[in-house]
């Protein structure tokens, strides 16, 4: 009991001395040396609970809603065994060097891992956990929400209702493009792409096409979809939905060539990563009427500067990367990332691990 009191007083003395955002979890009362982990942000409660109640690690955390400054990150990772990060942290050679040889697991609270250098991790034998599946439904849902908001001109219409542009009912005012009898092309038929397809089906889509590194018969099971070259996807689709990972192969793949092949009534939707799209080419395609409209949940950079030309276009809807943003999903992601990290610390199999 006396030890506990002493430890509490120690914490009360020490904590204010640290940077106001840095939080320490006191080691257990037996004073065992547990492996140290660093958490790069304030994370949802379901994740925090798993880490703090595990008794498996000492936790240091950037306990803020804002991203951890780079200098702070480099300082705090020194000597840690596990790193819990978000997609806002670039996990490259610099960070891994700063951590040193003790680091054995990185766990990202995201399904994308383009912010992590797989090569550097592999070189050092560090494992990587991530959060697929638990966010598939929320992301597919938001992707469809964005598609509909774009094709049915919702944000334009909301503005008209607010600014006096709404007169009486008129047959041809604010008309958009419907999904009925349309052809939808998915770029990247992974978990999210397949889930988007399932949600679009009852809207009367006539035909599903997809482009990918190769055929995906495992994904195109319940709903028939044709595997086609990217050029054909561009030519025939009324709606193109980008759901692929960002890799060197997909970087800038949606550019001038793709847009020039698309129908001028077509709608382009990207909820994957900003880097897949050449934004200057997209801007030109939209102002020149090469395509009808675009909806983006991801941009380059994030956040997009408020004076960016794309933000001036009525036929371009931009959302602030909220595809997985439901309380349930974010908590599930946090919990999975926490479990992945703990499994990595113990040398056990992770729930979801990126094969390196």
């Amino acid at each position, binding site marked *: 009991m006396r030890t506990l009191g002493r430890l509490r007083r120690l914490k009360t003395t020490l904590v204010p001395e640290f940077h106001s955002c840095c939080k320490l979890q006191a080691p257990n009362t037996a004073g065992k040396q547990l492996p140290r982990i660093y958490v790069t942000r304030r994370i949802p409660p379901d994740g925090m609970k798993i880490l703090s109640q595990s008794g498996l690690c000492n936790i240091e955390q950037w306990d803020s809603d804002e991203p951890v400054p780079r200098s702070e990150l480099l300082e705090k990772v020194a000597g840690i065994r596990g790193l819990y990060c978000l997609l806002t942290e670039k996990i490259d050679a610099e960070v891994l060097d700063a951590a040193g040889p003790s680091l054995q697991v990185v766990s990202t609270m995201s399904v994308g891992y383009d912010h992590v250098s797989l090569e550097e991790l592999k070189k050092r034998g560090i494992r990587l956990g991530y959060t697929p599946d638990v966010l598939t439904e929320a992301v597919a849902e938001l992707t469809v929400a964005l598609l509909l908001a774009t094709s049915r001109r919702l944000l334009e219409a909301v503005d008209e209702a607010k600014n006096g542009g709404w007169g009486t009912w008129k047959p041809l005012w604010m008309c*958009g493009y419907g999904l009925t009898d349309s052809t939808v092309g998915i770029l990247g038929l992974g978990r999210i792409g397949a889930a988007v397809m399932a949600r679009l089906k009852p809207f009367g889509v006539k035909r599903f096409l997809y482009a990918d590194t190769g055929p995906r018969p495992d994904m195109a099971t319940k709903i028939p979809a044709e595997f086609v070259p990217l050029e054909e996807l561009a030519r025939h689709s009324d709606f193109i939905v980008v759901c692929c990972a960002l890799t060197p192969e997909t970087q800038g793949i949606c550019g001038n060539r793709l847009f020039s092949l698309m129908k001028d009534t077509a709608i382009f939707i990207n909820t994957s990563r900003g880097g897949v799209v050449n934004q200057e080419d997209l801007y030109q395609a939209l102002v020149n009427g090469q395509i009808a409209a675009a909806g983006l949940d991801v941009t380059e950079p994030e956040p997009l500067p408020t004076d960016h030309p794309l933000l001036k276009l009525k036929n371009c809807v931009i959302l602030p990367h909220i595809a997985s943003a439901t309380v349930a999903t974010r908590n599930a992601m946090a919990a999975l990332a926490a479990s992945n990290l703990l499994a990595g610390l113990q040398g056990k199999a992770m729930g979801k691990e990126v094969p390196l």
Partner: protein
Amino acid sequence: EARFEQAESDARAQKVFQASSVCSIQQWDSDEPIPRSELLAGVAGKHGLLCLLSERIDKEVLDAAGSNLKIISTLSVGVDHLALEEIKKRGIRVGYTPDILTDATAELSVALLLAACRRLPESAEAVKNGGWTTWKPLWMCGYGLSDSTVGIIGLGRIGQAVARRLKPFGVKKFLYTGSRPKPESAVEFQADFVPLTKLAEESDFVVVTCSLTPDTKGMCDKDFFSRMKKTSVLINTSRGAVVNQEDLYQALVSGQIAAAGLDVTTPEPLPTDHPLLSLKNCVILPHIGSATYATRSAMSVLAANNLLAGLKGESMPNELQL
């Protein structure tokens, strides 16, 4: 002789009339609605009337038209702007445009539901005004459809089409209410027929797709909202008058419900200083339910064909049973 009143001409519908050579056409050829006095003067002696939902076709109009009038064709599926009793009394037939707008309207209803529950207008605004700083775990979180209960008020054509579209989003349970159970429509969704009060209490999403009648007028009121969950979302794409707007405003500001999406209001347009327009958790659209190029074109052609059939005393593609 027939009169064709339309606030905006549609090329395909015009072709239908020109090709028919069944009637001569007088038209209010403007994007703006026809003034009442014009309408009353213009209908005199006409055999047919093609109107929009913005024209109130009541006793005054019917009297002004006189005994030649035998067919009224409306460019809408809603008929609450028509005095059906008066029309029936005079033996006038009514054509309308169901079915052909079901897909577009159901699609827009789902679009509105998703925009409201996933906070699209609010977050798009943050992108423009500097509110978007970085990816944050709990910023701009909304409510998802996964494992939810959806309550449909009015499981008609549009209500069913909405349910069909919501199903693959992971909805756990569908409830519905209305004047009577519709087991043949409900079976596809395993939807349970429940009283209005139970629907309010148990639904995470309430979708209003019923017609406006004396029974449904003001149905979504203070009592209704008081029973709804604090995390629930109300969507109305039927007619404005089904919802008590003052009560809805109170429910939204007091946190009685989480959010609302309306494609229809009272009046239309809603005045720009209306309190509902000031709420972040209320998404208001300017009655664009059926607004796709394909649908509006098809509605125009159908309304024209309904009118011509009525003039010729033939059976209409879509006649309203009076």
